[in-house]
């Protein structure tokens, strides 16, 4: 019997959005992405890369020029959107409403009964760090509190898929950590999270997979470890009292960082055993040996630089 693959929580196939007809511009072109159920998938890209347009097409806010959109195995129409929660970027809600009334509105729009919404409200507010604020008018909320109530409205109907557009925007470091914990908690509960974010550290910390958009196209995609691990190099972390590393090691190492007697550097995979032996013979303590991994910020910056260089070369050749 053939293996049954789980139905993707989100599947976007060859999405396209053009504005202004033939002479207009293409905001999104041939974008495909698949989000596994229960995962946290990051959608990255510089401003104008097409992230928000892609999300809007998925959620029916923008009419696609082409492509297929599926959520939980069904065409991404209004019916299946009852199982989706969405936090728009920089959400705004009527300042005349209280938090309780806002959640009641969105719960009712999702088909919940008033009693179900009421029963869920205090738990939900506590989950986003707004306990006891149910009767406070949103006019009195700070930017960070509005972001939190925005997350609460996205979660009010206990959705199976949550789409978050810059959820940590406007939050202080504690708030950002809370949002990270919240996303990881959602994934642990089996909820799928599609996260669009500029905060690369946030994406790197929580996402299982990422799709990077640039100029409306997919520039890179895959498991975050696969993208960030540097092929052929290993990172070594060693502690010692000497002010320099042995000469034989110096000739092999790159990306060196030193702090408080701890040295971190990378060497070719083929030289790891030799480097470890040299360090050991010279009285150094090896603290860690790991595959060399660049930060998402480094990867992202390098990818954008390469893209810019290619574009400039193409412009020159024309």
């Amino acid at each position: 019997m053939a293996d049954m693959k789980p139905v993707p929580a989100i599947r976007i196939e060859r999405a396209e959005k053009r504005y202004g007809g033939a002479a207009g511009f293409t905001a999104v072109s041939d974008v495909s992405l698949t989000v596994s159920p229960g995962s946290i998938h990051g959608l990255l890209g510089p401003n104008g890369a097409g992230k928000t347009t892609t999300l809007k097409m998925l959620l029916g806010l923008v009419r696609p020029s082409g492509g297929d959109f599926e959520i939980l195995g069904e065409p991404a129409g209004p019916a299946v959107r009852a199982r989706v929660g969405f936090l728009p970027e920089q959400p705004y809600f009527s300042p005349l409403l209280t938090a309780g009334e806002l959640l009641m509105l969105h719960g009712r729009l999702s088909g919940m009964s008033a009693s179900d919404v009421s029963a869920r409200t205090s738990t939900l507010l506590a989950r986003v760090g707004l306990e006891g604020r149910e009767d406070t008018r949103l006019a009195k909320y700070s930017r960070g509190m509005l972001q939190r109530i925005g997350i609460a409205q996205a979660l009010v109907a206990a959705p199976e898929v949550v789409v978050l557009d810059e959820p940590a925007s406007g939050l202080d470091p504690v708030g950002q950590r809370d949002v990270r914990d919240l996303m990881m908690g959602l994934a642990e509960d089996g909820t799928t999270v599609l996260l669009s974010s500029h905060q690369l550290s946030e994406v790197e910390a929580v996402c299982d997979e990422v799709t990077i958009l640039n100029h409306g196209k997919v520039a890179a995609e895959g498991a975050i470890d696969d993208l960030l691990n540097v092929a052929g190099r290993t990172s070594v972390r060693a502690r010692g009292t000497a002010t320099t590393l042995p000469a034989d090691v110096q000739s092999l190492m790159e990306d060196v960082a030193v702090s408080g007697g701890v040295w971190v550097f990378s060497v070719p995979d083929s030289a790891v055993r030799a480097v470890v032996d040299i360090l050991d013979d010279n009285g150094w303590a090896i603290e860690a040996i790991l595959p060399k991994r660049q930060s998402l910020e480094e990867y992202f910056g390098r990818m954008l630089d390469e893209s810019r260089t290619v574009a400039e070369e193409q412009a020159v050749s024309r």
Partner: protein
Amino acid sequence: MNRVFAVARAVVSDAIRRRLVWIVVLFSLVLAASIPMLPSYGVGVAEAVYREIALAMTYVAAMVVTLVLSVARIPGEVERRTVYSVLARDVRRWEYVLGTWLGIVLTLGAATLAFGAIIFGVGWVMYGEPMWLLWQGVAAIWMEAGIIAALCVAVSTVTLPVIVAIAALAFLFIAHVRADLLGGPQNPLWHVYPSLDAFNIIAPVAHGSGVSLMYLATMTAVFAAWVAMLTLLGALGFSRRDL
């Protein structure tokens, strides 16, 4: 329909908390109370003049409230992106448009009911008789305001509030000059001209005759037809719009 009512409820709740609606109602109370203080009318016509001015004032107040509530409702929600978290749910665009109109028209209902109660109460106190016919006029005004609200909502799905306001005022003008422009029913354009004259029953109410139940039923049917057409246009316009 639950989603339509949920949207309508949000609109009503939001509108009730905007003080402007109730300032207009309060202003009307002051004006209604001052009508009998105008220079003396001829004997026997004082009540008729009161009814005419009271209904005219109610009409103006209702239209002001209509424009305030409906001109910028949808453009504002789109501009502030409030609409995103609503339409990203299991909510169709037509449900949003219909719910918005319903919320506005229910708020208008409460406001015109308040206007009606004020002019009815003042009339009763000042002239010693309950002027029940005033309620016919109030109902007609509410229906006409409901049509204007539907027009505003429909136009506002595709354009800016200032254009919506201009369109609404232009329509109000055009819809009340059919007789001046076309003369009478003998003109072939008479029956296709967009007229709201059917809702102008101030004169029969003011002069004490009112209108028949059949006329009220016909007026209600015209109201329903206008609203259905405009709401459909609004839903079509909004469904094609990228947000």
